[in-house]
């Protein structure tokens, strides 16, 4: 295990007085080195260049930097941690293989979203992802004054998630990227390889279909 950019530092544990203990995260396996400081400070473009020139540790920094967004995207499609985690790993393995062909026309983040959306849509096409049962809603503290409100909100949220899962793949991807990942229409067009006009139309039709699904 290594010290990443997001989790650097010792564990928050204080040794009792008199103990001579150094409590830090375990080191990487022997033979591996933490990415050099210059890479951690480098921008994405420089990381891609470093990776292409043979520095594999540059890819570690890319993973550290983008893993949360990629995981979130995957979670939106599969709705459970285990699958999202596997899928996010798959996205980075694909990215590792394909980074040599990355042209730099878009940002690295947008390109990773593109790889991610393709991986998610492939997964959905290959495997019926278990949809979330209504019973799987978080437990609600029924002592709370607004417990009923919260139950209703959770029910509605589960209905909406279920309806989103039934949208056609491209509409679902557009909606997810726009609403949850907060990408602009232009960025979504780059991710999906379509025009901005098509993205806007897709988004509108996604909302229309969602409304019909929720009414039915």
């Amino acid at each position, binding site marked *: *295990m*290594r010290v*990443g950019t*997001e*989790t650097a530092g010792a564990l928050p544990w204080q040794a009792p007085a008199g103990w001579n203990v150094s409590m830090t*995260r375990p080191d990487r396996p022997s033979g*591996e080195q933490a990415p050099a400081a210059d890479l951690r400070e480098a921008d994405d473009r420089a990381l891609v260049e470093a*990776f*292409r020139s043979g520095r*594999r540790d540059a*890819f*570690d920094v890319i*993973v*550290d930097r983008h*893993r*949360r967004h990629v*995981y*979130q995207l995957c*979670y*939106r499609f599969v709705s459970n*941690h285990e699958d999202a*985690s596997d899928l*996010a*790993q798959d996205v*980075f*393995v694909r990215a*590792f*293989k*394909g*980074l*040599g*062909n990355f042209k730099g026309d878009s940002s690295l983040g947008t390109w990773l979203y593109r790889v991610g959306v393709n991986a998610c849509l492939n997964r959905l096409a290959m495997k019926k992802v278990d949809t979330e049962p209504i019973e799987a809603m978080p437990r609600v503290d029924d002592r709370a004054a607004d417990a009923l409100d919260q139950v209703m*909100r959770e029910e*509605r*949220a*589960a209905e*909406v*998630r279920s309806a*989103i899962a039934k949208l056609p793949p491209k509409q679902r991807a557009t*909606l997810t990227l726009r*609403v*949850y990942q907060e990408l602009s*229409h232009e960025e979504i067009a780059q991710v999906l*390889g*379509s*025009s*901005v*006009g*098509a993205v*806007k*139309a897709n*988004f*509108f*039709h996604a*909302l229309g279909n*969602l*409304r019909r699904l*929720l009414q039915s």
Partner: protein
Amino acid sequence: MTQHLSPQEFVESLDSTLATDRLDHLAACQTCRDEIEQLRLLMTDVEAAAPVPQPSPLFWDHFSDRVRQATSNVEPAARPAWWAQTWRPLAAFAGGLAVVVLAVVLRSGPGAPVPVDSATASVAMAEPDASNPDELASEMFVTIASALPWEDVEQVAMPRADTVDNLIEQLTPAEREQLARWLRAGIGDLE
């Protein structure tokens, strides 16, 4: 009353980027306003629907390790060789040139063959006929394309599937009219 908002315009209205001239329609049209209100309510539902649970910090370290292990035996794709990067722009350039030549031939129409001796032909290749706008356009295309980096030429000469849609969307109504006239004239010539 003007036309109702299009799907794209509804989305632009949600984003508060609707064109000013369409805002006038929106102000006057209850139907469009109701539709936007419903879309807004739906967006609120969608936004509230999908919180992603945050995995623990330990998960992230474990995740990075997993990715590293999964890629440890994988060879990243090498950057394509220069010739592999060049053949596509070259093919694109040749294709673009062929399109221009074809357009010139189609527009000039069938004519009686004119005998030319080799000396005249070489002069004609070297210097475009200033009185012929098609030839000048072709020459200009070749000159510009020759001066551009291959990647730029590729961008122009190898459009993606939706590039034409994009371009047409950017045209003004008058330009679209003109394009339609050209297309009709071109199709008529071919028929």
